């Protein structure tokens, strides 16, 4: 039994999966408030499934909201410590791509687009289910150019100027079951992509 968690973006997505089967799930767009809700939601999903301790945990490591990533990862790591079960990571872009490929079996190329905040978008290309490049943070015009001529998926897709949108669905934790074993066995540490907005101030005095 795999506990799957995602708090990377506006969704709060938690599921218990048994192989390909979703045993219990909570998948709601909440925008904010992940820190308050995530553990009560895990408790609810576990109770509905009648599961006391899962066999392992997999958590969305991003990219996404820096705060959201930390909330999910801190929760997953501490649950793993308390239960004595392994904790792994999975990428938000892989989740979105896996769902899009599953819905469009004829599609062999797509780009995943996520809102990166600060007026930017995260973009990653996929081919035949596999990543075909790194995740990059781009301005909307650059992202539109980078996605020209290919289908796009992800909640950031509508922010492109002109695109063939396969899906604008948010990452769903339960889609961990669609990932390759390697894609859901990453180190559970945040995938920030962008460096912190910290500059060495000369003599900033407020």
């Amino acid at each position: 039994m795999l506990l799957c968690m995602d708090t990377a973006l506006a969704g709060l997505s938690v599921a218990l999966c048994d192989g390909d089967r979703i045993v219990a799930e909570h998948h709601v767009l909440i925008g904010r408030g992940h820190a308050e809700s995530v553990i009560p939601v895990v408790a609810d999903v576990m109770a509905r499934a009648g599961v006391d301790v899962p066999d392992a945990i997999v958590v969305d490591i991003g990219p996404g909201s820096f705060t959201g990533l930390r909330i999910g990862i801190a929760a997953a790591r501490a649950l793993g410590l308390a239960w004595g079960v392994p904790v792994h990571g999975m990428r938000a872009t892989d989740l979105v791509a896996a769902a899009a490929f599953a819905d469009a079996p004829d599609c062999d190329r797509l780009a995943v687009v996520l809102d990166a905040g600060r007026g930017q978008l995260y973009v990653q290309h996929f081919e035949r289910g596999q990543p075909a490049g790194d995740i990059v943070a781009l301005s909307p015009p650059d992202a539109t150019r980078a996605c020209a001529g290919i289908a796009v998926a992800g909640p950031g897709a509508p922010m492109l100027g002109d695109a063939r949108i396969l899906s604008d669905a948010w990452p769903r934790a339960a889609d961990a079951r669609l990932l390759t074993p390697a894609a859901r066995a990453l180190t559970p540490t945040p995938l920030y992509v962008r460096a912190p907005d910290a500059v060495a101030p000369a003599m900033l005095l407020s």
Partner: protein
Amino acid sequence: MSALILGIESSCDETAVALVRADRTIVAQAVASQDAEHRPFGGVVPELAARAHVERLTPMVEAVLAQAGIKLADVDAIASTAGPGLIGGVMVGLVTAKALSFAANKPLLAINHLEGHALSPRLADSGLQFPYLLLLVSGGHCQLLAVDGVGRYRRLATTIDDAAGEAFDKVAKILGLGFPGGPAVERAAKTGNPFAYKLPRPLLNTDEPHFSFAGLKSAVLRAWAAAPDKSLPASADLAASFQAAVVDCLTDRTRLALAVMPEATALVVAGGVAANSAIRDALRSIAVGAGLPFVAPPLWLCTDNAAMIAWAGAERLALGLVDGLDAVARPRWPLDPDGEAVRGAGVKA
């Protein structure tokens, strides 16, 4: 065996975990400072702090349990700072505590960081009874509180602009003394002449009970800009003069507060700035003059740590004051919600 509390602190730039018993035994603890990460920026960068907390916290919980030879199942409750502080770090600590609390089926205690400081003297001194007058001085706060009991605090004074610790950090930056600023200024002040510069003592000898340090900081900035010689003796003199001015302000306001709290059984100081020995010595003299015991926790308990959070958890658990898994992380969280708003930025807490 008395209750065993696991405490977590991550509200600023220290990641800390502690195991403390209700009988005041500190079973194990660890504190990881992030000074190295923040030093290039001359102050704490919230995003860098949050990144460091999430990397370090769970391994630290594991290490502290292992060091004590204790299983999570043997802990009686989980306490974490839930605010006030840098919200990214607070969330990491609180969510970690909630996850441990849920998975190990232990009560959660969402602790006000200021309450951790306010009650920490009772961890250090088993004889300290309520009510006492507390001067809470740190990088984010400068308050005089009547501590009437656990969860019962009356704010008698607060800062209308900068906290005392903030002023120390900024003066260290102005004088190029290094980071963190408190110890750097104190070190420099030891060799300096406190009468070398004539600096203002904001609000001194006024009836307004509050603190103000912004004008003092600006005066240091102006004095340093005008100083013909910027070598070490000169910066030491200015550091010493600044520290003497802060001591005068703190002691004057503390005397005023003691006058309106005749029921106080002790004068207590807590918070990171209480690590400053010039400030401690001056406060001790006031206590002696008022015929009261002076209580200052050991230096390690004055700076941010998790033992004080675990201890506040033990005090609250004993009264049944436990929290739900939906407890909210708060960037601002005054200890005395009924405290009147004061002019300036003092409404922060």
